[in-house]
């Protein structure tokens, strides 16, 4: 990505939440051959932006996200978050929200949210206060004592988001967080996520299969192709915020979704 001429470069202090992916590649070595999962992927995300990664299955979008989280190492290129390379998980810089079933079933909702803090030895009272704030932010005030099996799918993902936000990292990475939810809950959770995002000003990178979800949520949509995974398009979504349900049937929305669909159909 070439920086635009009229944008003044950000000072290092203001780069909290910026993500830079430079010439990143990932090759899986198997016994018979080398599989190129990602090839020469470069992108730049400015602080506070909501960026969605879409693409057909096997395009490496989740792999890319896991590399941004420091959970997997790329075989080529560099990934920088808040101005420093990411070589291993760093909860100070990055919170991760996974697909369903990532909550610990033996812990209550608030203990799940406190988990990242407990790992760092934050005192109990401070932990509890922060977890309460995070639960309130995601709209689960009063549900802290419940165990995951006592919560609905949407509520569980709210707890996951609270867990991702509890340490207040500038970046939130989300790996198909709503994939297992029914359509109705999914729409509600999308609106909820946008509300939380607006309230916290986080940089969000969101992976999804759903084109509607991608356009509805994003400032920018990055479209990837499969085998090898490459960026084939980078769209700016100029729809006004807050996004509303009515926009889904508008022309602007439709043409963006069609453009993404054409890319995906071509590569699938």
């Amino acid at each position, binding site marked *: 990505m070439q920086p635009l001429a009229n944008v003044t470069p950000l000072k290092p202090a203001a780069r909290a939440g910026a993500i830079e992916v430079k010439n990143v590649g990932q090759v899986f070595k198997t016994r018979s051959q080398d599989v190129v999962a990602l090839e020469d992927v470069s992108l730049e995300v400015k602080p506070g932006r909501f960026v969605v990664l879409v693409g057909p299955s096997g395009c490496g979008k989740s792999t890319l996200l896991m590399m941004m989280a420091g959970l997997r190492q790329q075989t080529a290129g560099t990934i920088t978050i808040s101005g420093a390379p990411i070589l291993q998980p760093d*909860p100070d810089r990055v919170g991760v929200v996974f697909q369903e079933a990532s909550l610990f079933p033996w812990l209550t909702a608030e203990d799940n949210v406190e988990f*990242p803090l407990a*790992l760092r030895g934050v005192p109990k009272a401070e932990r509890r206060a922060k977890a309460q704030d995070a639960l309130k932010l995601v709209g689960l005030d009063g549900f802290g004592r419940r165990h995951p099996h006592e919560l609905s799918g949407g509520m569980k993902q709210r707890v996951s988001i609270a867990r991702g936000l509890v340490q207040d990292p500038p970046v939130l990475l989300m790996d198909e967080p709503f994939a297992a939810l029914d359509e109705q809950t999914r729409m509600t959770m999308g609106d909820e996520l946008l509300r939380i995002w607006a309230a916290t000003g986080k940089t969000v990178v969101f992976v999804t299969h759903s084109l509607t979800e991608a356009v509805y949520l994003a400032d920018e949509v990055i479209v990837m192709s499969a085998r090898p995974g490459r960026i084939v398009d980078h769209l700016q979504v100029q729809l006004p915020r807050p996004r509303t349900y009515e926009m889904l049937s508008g022309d602007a929305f439709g043409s963006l979704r069609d453009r993404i669909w054409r890319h995906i159909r071509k590569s699938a």
Partner: protein
Amino acid sequence: MQGTLAINLARIAIIVAILALWEVLSRTGIVNPRLLPSASDTFATLGDLLRRAAVQKDLMVTATEVLTAFALAVPFGALIGFLVAENRYFADVAKPLLFFAFSIPKSIFLPMFILVFGVGFAQKVGFGFFSTIFIVIMSTTTAVESVKVEHLTVARSYGATPWQTAFRVYLPSMLPVLLEALRISMIFNLTGVILAEMYASRDGIGHQIATWGENFQMKQLLAGVVMVAAIAMTFNELVRWVETRCSHWRT
């Protein structure tokens, strides 16, 4: 709750019915009372036996053997089970072999244990250990496999150290399966030790039960059976109680 109450009443009714049938069969002479002493006589004998110093000593001997064998077999088996489950190569090599070993009735090795250890404490503990270790290994393997990859990834993404991962993810994930394993291991362990005592021994409650049987002391024999059964059930229920408390989330 009414359902649970009704079910409990039904259970108690069955136990009472069995005891009543036992009493009636013996008292009326439908079954020869010399072969089947009545329930009331048996329980009276049980009370007498429990007051006898010799029986108390036998119970202590057996308890020591059982607990020693258990204390050796559980950590040792758990360690092997953990290594087998965590190491792909080790698992591929060892798993079928463990299944082979598990399928063999352990009692056929009892004469060898006597030849190696003689008749005494070591023979009982050794055989108890041998009867228990395979089930411990296999249960631990299952327990490790019950740990979800997603949960490990979550821990890693929040910077958990290996110790934190062990105590905050592995242990709670495995606990329900491990407690169940503990319970079942004890059944195997108790069976092993008592069998060893009945086969060749100078003391222990298994030895007493065998002796009463050989001497046709039916009251003592039945009282001994009731005694061991009650002890085994108590331990089992105790662990099961802990189990349900620790695994309420597994629904």
